[in-house]
């Protein structure tokens, strides 16, 4: 039970040459041999979809798995803003190096230099590829691609397709998959949920799935398994993630030995539509560009009863402008989120639930006119009004932060391979590129980079090293199928008194209160104490209706919440063991005199890669040291 | 014709385009038919001579044959498409309503108005074209007095009412069918869509109203 020091397998040589050199050094698989290797891909979002298309184009035998009714439904589809690339089309001084630097700095120096550089390097190819697929990016009148600027960067490098960039990129990857299905090179299993990954002699050799319509459990073998199953934001119950987004595939792999890295790194988005009541099922994000013109405020008086427009200037507290005079409303996501929470914590929140702050466009409308504001934010205002039934042109918007993205994930090396050989992890499911905080428009970039341009090279290394043949009759498959089935049976047989959502909400509350925007030792210890209690109660008293052999959404939910109940605890442990503040992880104990996040570079410039030892048992915190040879670590300040 | 070609031309879109084409043809026919028949307002002689000119033309049999084929094609294909459409739904809705932003009474009733028009047409041909045969002599030339047949037929107010109702049905059918035919052939442009929709309705109204004049006129003639 000793701490291991992990090797990220970053190639030698200057940063700029690492990826090229690595590609050259990687052994190739003969084209005629490729068809002999089978790859299983769990998830059909940007990472998984892109990988499925690309690997099958290369000639591998590929099978994809999605829990949805179609590969096109993956949650990548919901990304609004855009995708970054260092094209420098606007001629404003962008470069691969600058994109790399912004991403490293944005991640608060908790990501791997070489990975981030590679990401910036292939970013341009992504745009080329997507355009060639027919993704209708926004264009200028001259016919060239249009760019806009986004948070955390001083250049315009974000490509976009209206407010539906994620949708268009995903549909691009989806149609690439359809093309491969057409050619008979790719098989897609829809409504199939991965229950377990099968490990033989430390190598990933297959997965166990359940057909969500018929309940049938099936075994699938492969020469490599790729997980591209997304993040674990739904551990908080309320988040901007889709309802079916879950951590189960990644978590099952973790329980089979894959390390889980930096689980406490979660991103909370400041401009979401607030919770309306107990039946709220999910949160809706609005682009943070709103903060360019909206002013954030709360009433000075806790017991304010007046309508927002009746509250005079002197009774309003524009707290962001007051605390951060130079950045004002445009402070980074984490700072804006934390301050909103602080205001609500002291009782100054607004609305029925008192869990919201105002985002007011009155002054902007006065200054620029309603039309100008409508041109910039019309669709967002419309969406807001649809959900909240208030006209934001007249009444200030109410906003509140919400969990949005998880930077942590399964630990992978430079090849995107986990510590289990043959198990690769892409996109949000891995931890690799965003450090402690992800910049806007970088998630799409990473998913596609991993799928289109990284995995096709690195997976070849695994095959070239030689893989022995295994079939689904191997005892490891028997074992995995048996435990998966038993777990589901158990869930169905508890027949307790409380619904799955009851437990999920309860867990979410503990997570939000203690492992949310600002964390401290006391709260984290409380979470570590309470979560196992909820888990215990869950396994005693949950009520799952329906049967095994039919579509049973309660059973699906229960199966996923069972995993959230374990991962939540790990997140709290990780947060507790990282007493520094960095990016999205803010520890009350570690702040500057100006209440800003204070890193502890001396002791925590590393990745915490957790090793599973059993449910309820203390996991092992393995370490990968992060070496910064090309950038200098600096403290953020937005005053 | 190869198999793929057969399949290509039996595709839903092609079938619809054939229906659209034949439909458009009958829209043109309606105009010609109406203009000719309105000669009745000029004088019985003009009307009867027009009718005679039509039937004495040696090409009339060929033309009638072509029109029958076009008409039957329109009917048969439309019925086939409708049957396929019914089948495509499978189990029907417990409750189905239009949004009010798309389908109209006209579009909803196309198959029914179509069938009614078919029934009407059979009766129309039987009662008038093959109706009582009278003769009249103009300048020594003996020709059919179709005018008399008409007046006699429309002396019965029930026949008048039936005709007016039938023309309403034709109007409803055409008001959707005409613009629909354009859409089916791919004519759709934001600048002309509004016009085309209105044109279809106005066209249908004018044609229907024009034909309604005939029974009313004949009825009034007969009453004298």
């Amino acid at each position, binding site marked *: 039970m000793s701490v291991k020091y992990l090797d990220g397998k970053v190639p030698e040589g200057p940063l700029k040459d690492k990826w090229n050199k690595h590609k050259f050094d990687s052994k190739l698989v003969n084209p005629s041999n490729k068809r002999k290797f089978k790859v299983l891909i769990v998830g059909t979002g940007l990472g998984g979809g892109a990988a499925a298309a690309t690997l099958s184009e290369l000639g591998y035998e590929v099978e994809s798995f999605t829990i949805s*009714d179609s590969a096109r*439904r993956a949650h990548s589809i919901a990304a609004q803003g855009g995708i970054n690339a260092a*094209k420098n*089309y606007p001629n404003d001084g962008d470069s691969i190096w600058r994109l790399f630097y912004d991403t490293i700095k944005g991640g608060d120096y908790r990501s791997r230099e070489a990975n981030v550089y590679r990401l910036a390097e292939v970013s341009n190819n992504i745009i080329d590829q997507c355009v060639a697929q027919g993704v209708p990016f926004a264009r200028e009148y001259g016919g060239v691609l249009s760019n806009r600027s986004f948070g955390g960067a001083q250049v315009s490098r974000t490509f976009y397709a209206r407010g539906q960039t994620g949708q268009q990129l995903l549909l691009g990857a989806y149609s690439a998959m359809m093309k491969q299905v057409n050619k008979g090179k790719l098989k897609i299993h829809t409504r199939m949920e991965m229950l377990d990954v099968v490990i033989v002699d430390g190598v990933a050799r297959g997965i166990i799935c359940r057909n969500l319509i018929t309940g049938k459990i099936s075994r699938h073998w492969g020469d490599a398994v790729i997980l591209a199953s997304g993040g674990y934001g739904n551990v908080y119950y309320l988040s901007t993630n889709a309802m079916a987004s879950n951590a189960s595939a990644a978590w099952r792999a973790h329980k089979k030995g894959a390390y889980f890295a930096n689980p406490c790194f979660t991103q909370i988005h400041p401009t979401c539509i607030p919770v309306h009541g107990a039946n709220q099922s999910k949160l809706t994000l609005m682009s943070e560009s709103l903060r360019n013109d909206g002013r954030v405020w709360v009433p000075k008086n806790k017991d304010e009863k007046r309508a927002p427009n009746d509250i005079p200037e002197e009774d309003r507290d524009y707290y962001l402008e007051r605390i951060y005079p130079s950045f004002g409303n445009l402070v980074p996501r984490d700072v804006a989120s934390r301050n909103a929470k602080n205001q609500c914590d002291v009782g100054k929140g607004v609305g*029925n639930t008192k869990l919201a702050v105002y985002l007011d466009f009155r002054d902007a409308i006065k200054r620029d006119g309603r039309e100008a504001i409508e041109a910039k934010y019309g669709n967002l205002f419309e969406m807001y009004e649809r959900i909240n039934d208030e006209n934001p042109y007249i009444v200030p918007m109410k906003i509140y932060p919400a969990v949005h993205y998880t930077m942590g994930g399964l630990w992978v090396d430079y090849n995107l391979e986990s510590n289990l050989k043959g198990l690769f992890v892409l996109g949000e499911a891995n931890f690799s590129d965003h450090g402690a905080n992800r910049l806007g428009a970088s998630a799409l970039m990473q998913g596609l980079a991993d799928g289109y341009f990284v995995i096709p090279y690195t997976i070849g290394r695994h095959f070239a090293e030689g893989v022995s043949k295994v079939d689904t009759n191997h005892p490891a498959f028997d074992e995995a199928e048996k435990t998966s089935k038993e777990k589901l049976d158990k869930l169905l047989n508890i027949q307790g008194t409380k619904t799955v959502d009851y437990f999920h909400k309860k867990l979410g509350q503990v997570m939000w209160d203690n492992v949310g925007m600002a964390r401290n030792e006391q709260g984290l210890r409380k979470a570590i104490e309470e979560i196992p209690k909820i888990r215990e109660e869950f396994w005693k008293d949950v009520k799952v*209706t329906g049967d095994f052999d039919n579509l049973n959404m309660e059973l699906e939910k229960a199966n996923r919440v069972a995993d959230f109940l374990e991962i939540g605890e790990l997140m709290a442990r990780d947060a507790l063991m990282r007493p520094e503040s960095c990016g999205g992880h803010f520890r009350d104990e570690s702040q500057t005199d100006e209440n800003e996040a204070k890193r502890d570079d001396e002791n925590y410039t590393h990745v915490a890669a957790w090793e599973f030892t059993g449910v309820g048992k203390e996991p092992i915190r393995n370490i990968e040291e992060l070496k910064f040879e090309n950038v200098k670590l600096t403290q953020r300040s937005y005053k | 014709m190869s198999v793929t070609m057969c399949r290509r031309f039996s595709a839903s879109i092609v079938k619809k385009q054939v229906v659209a084409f034949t439909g458009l043809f009958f829209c043109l026919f309606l105009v010609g038919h109406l203009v000719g028949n309105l000669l009745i307002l000029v004088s019985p002689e003009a009307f009867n001579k027009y009718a005679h000119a039509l039937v004495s033309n040696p090409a009339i049999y060929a033309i009638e044959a072509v029109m029958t084929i076009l008409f039957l094609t329109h009917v048969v294909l439309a019925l086939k498409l409708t049957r396929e459409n019914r089948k495509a739904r499978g189990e029907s809705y417990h409750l189905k309503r239009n949004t009010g932003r*798309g389908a109209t009474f006209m*579009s909803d009733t196309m198959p029914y108005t179509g069938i009614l028009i078919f029934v009407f047409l059979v009766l129309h041909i039987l009662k008038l074209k093959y109706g009582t045969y009278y003769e009249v002599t103009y300048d020594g030339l003996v020709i059919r007095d179709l005018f008399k047949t008409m007046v006699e037929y429309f002396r019965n107010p029930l026949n008048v009412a039936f005709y007016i109702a039938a023309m309403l049905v034709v109007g409803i059918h055409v008001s959707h069918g005409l613009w629909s035919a354009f859409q089916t052939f791919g004519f759709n442009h934001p600048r002309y869509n509004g016009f085309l929709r209105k044109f279809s309705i106005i066209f249908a109204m004018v044609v229907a109203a024009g034909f309604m004049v005939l029974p009313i006129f004949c009825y009034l003639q007969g009453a004298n």
Partner: protein
Amino acid sequence: MSDIGLMNLKLKIWRQKNMTTKGKMVDYKLDGVSPDSSFLEMIDQLNEELVTKGEDPVAFDHDCREGICGMCSLMINGMAHGPESETTTCQLHMRKYKDGDTIVIEPWRARPMPVQKDLVVDRTAFDDIMVAGGFVDINVGSAPDANGLPIGKGNAELSMDAASCIGCAACVAACPNASAMLFVSAKVSQFALLPQGEVEKDQRVLNMVTKMDELGFGNCTNAAECEASCPKGIDISNIARMNREYLAASIKAH
């Protein structure tokens, strides 16, 4: 939250155990619905009650709940995605209903999209149509520079209009004929309007339409209920475009 304005509703919902059993409409009463709830949250609330009573909850498709994934469906009082224009079911809110209302909830109905359970239907037919030709045949690695191919803003915007389809199949559900023309034409249009898709456009439209027919979707009668029900406002000019593309392609092919 206060209890003021909470609604009591009567629901009539299609219940069907699985693909092989026959379904029927079942009546439910649901009290205390907040007008701020979304339509799906209202069903969540019903399901929580059903589960607590030990009954099987109503299965329905949903995922992102922000109107983009295309999972949610439902015929609500006879209209696809409910009465609002350009709104998915997940974005429909209960404040559009009154206390005491009866709401009829049914699955999409189309023979090529059979009910799998309750309100869940199988939409893989759409994938099948996409497989037939809904792509540009280009492999990763061979793409030219993104700006090497200027595209006029006009066509780029029209293409984006068509591309915003979320594949929910409301068009099929709302169509009096269960036709998939709007879905197919949106994809055909997206590519036909761009130079990238130009090369294969004839083959694409022929293959996709052939597949659509083969699957047993109905024929378009230009009723435009699809356009009226489309949560993304995709209009039937796309169908017209596909009609002429198809005609041109089938003539050219021989």
